[in-house]
């Protein structure tokens, strides 16, 4: 629910900055798959609880230093969204981290599941740090964050929790990206089909 709230804040502001008469709902419900620039990590599907929690944990661990830094953005509204979101992200991170530790340092079965989930998802983590030319322009204006500067804090928290959880990162150096360029994994189409169903079937409906 907090994540929907944070997305709403960002999309409302995006719609306002774009100033083309589109609303936050238009941006959420009426774009095509290749017009979404989310990382592939966040579109990976639910199912196995360990997979859901590992995905959430990697994303939470990224959002902590990200919002901490964005609070100081030269853009007042982005700074306000970051200040609000950071408070929530702290307990998200606590929640997901504690689950990682419980599962990793739990039973043989829970350890196996969370290890499998890490092997499945870790390759998507590098894309969180992807920056393009627009990002670089905004960084030079003090609006956006140079994501490379967040890596030490991110890595430190990842290592701290994994150590408590008696887990290790996968050996593989394989990295996946493309989401930030509009290329998505199989799950995203299914997710959008469900999310956009009402607006596609009943255009402009509200409740």
């Amino acid at each position, binding site marked *: *629910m*907090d*994540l*929907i*709230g*944070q997305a*709403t*804040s960002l999309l409302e502001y995006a719609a306002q900055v774009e100033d083309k008469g589109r609303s936050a709902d238009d941006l959420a419900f009426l774009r095509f798959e290749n017009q979404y620039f989310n990382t592939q990590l966040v579109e990976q599907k639910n199912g196995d609880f360990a997979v859901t929690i590992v995905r959430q944990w990697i994303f939470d661990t990224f959002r902590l230093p990200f919002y901490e830094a964005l609070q100081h953005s030269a853009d*007042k*509204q982005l*700074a*306000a*969204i970051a*200040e*609000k*979101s950071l*408070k*929530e992200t*702290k*307990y998200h*991170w*606590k*929640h997901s*981290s*504690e689950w990682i*530790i419980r599962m990793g340092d739990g039973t043989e079965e829970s350890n196996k599941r969370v290890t499998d989930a890490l092997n499945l998802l870790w390759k998507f983590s590098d894309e969180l740090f992807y920056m393009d030319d627009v990002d670089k322009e905004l960084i030079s204006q003090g609006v956006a964050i140079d994501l490379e500067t967040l890596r030490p804090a991110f890595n430190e928290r990842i290592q701290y*929790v994994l150590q*408590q959880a008696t887990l290790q990162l996968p050996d593989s150096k394989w990295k996946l990206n493309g989401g930030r360029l509009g290329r998505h994994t199989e799950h995203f189409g299914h997710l959008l089909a469900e999310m956009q169903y009402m607006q596609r079937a009943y255009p402009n409906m509200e409740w």
Partner: protein
Amino acid sequence: MVNETTIWNYLEEVPDPEVPVLSVIDLGIVRAVKVISEKEVEVTITPTYSGCPAMNYIEKNIRELLTEKGFEKITFHTVLSPAWTTDWMSEAGKEKLLAYGIAPPVNEVDKLILFGDAPVVRCPQCGSENTKMLSQFGSTACKALYQCNDCLEPFDYFKCLR
């Protein structure tokens, strides 16, 4: 002549949809009001949590009440900064919560400490401090579920947010 104090008093009548014993004023959701004319008013509100599903209802309820009081143009501004904190909950609000059976926010526990001690929360039924947290999330995301070890009653605790 209607002034800002009148509006603040009116808004005491608007309950929070999730915790109806509290008004939007008790919660600290209304940050400012401005009377433009006899028929026009501006209200500045802030969400408790980004995704709080009650915000739309709160806006609607405020609009209905002020319309009833004779205002024709009601404009809302939503501000995110400074971010809402349970410190803004009024003392009267905390007493109302307790009487309603929800333990009010007590103290801050650093959320970045994993498996840190849960705060000591007094049971709203029997007053015992011998209670335990059952779940970080209760009937709503802003509350945790506790149980009293003495009278055995489960109860909601309105979490501290700073």
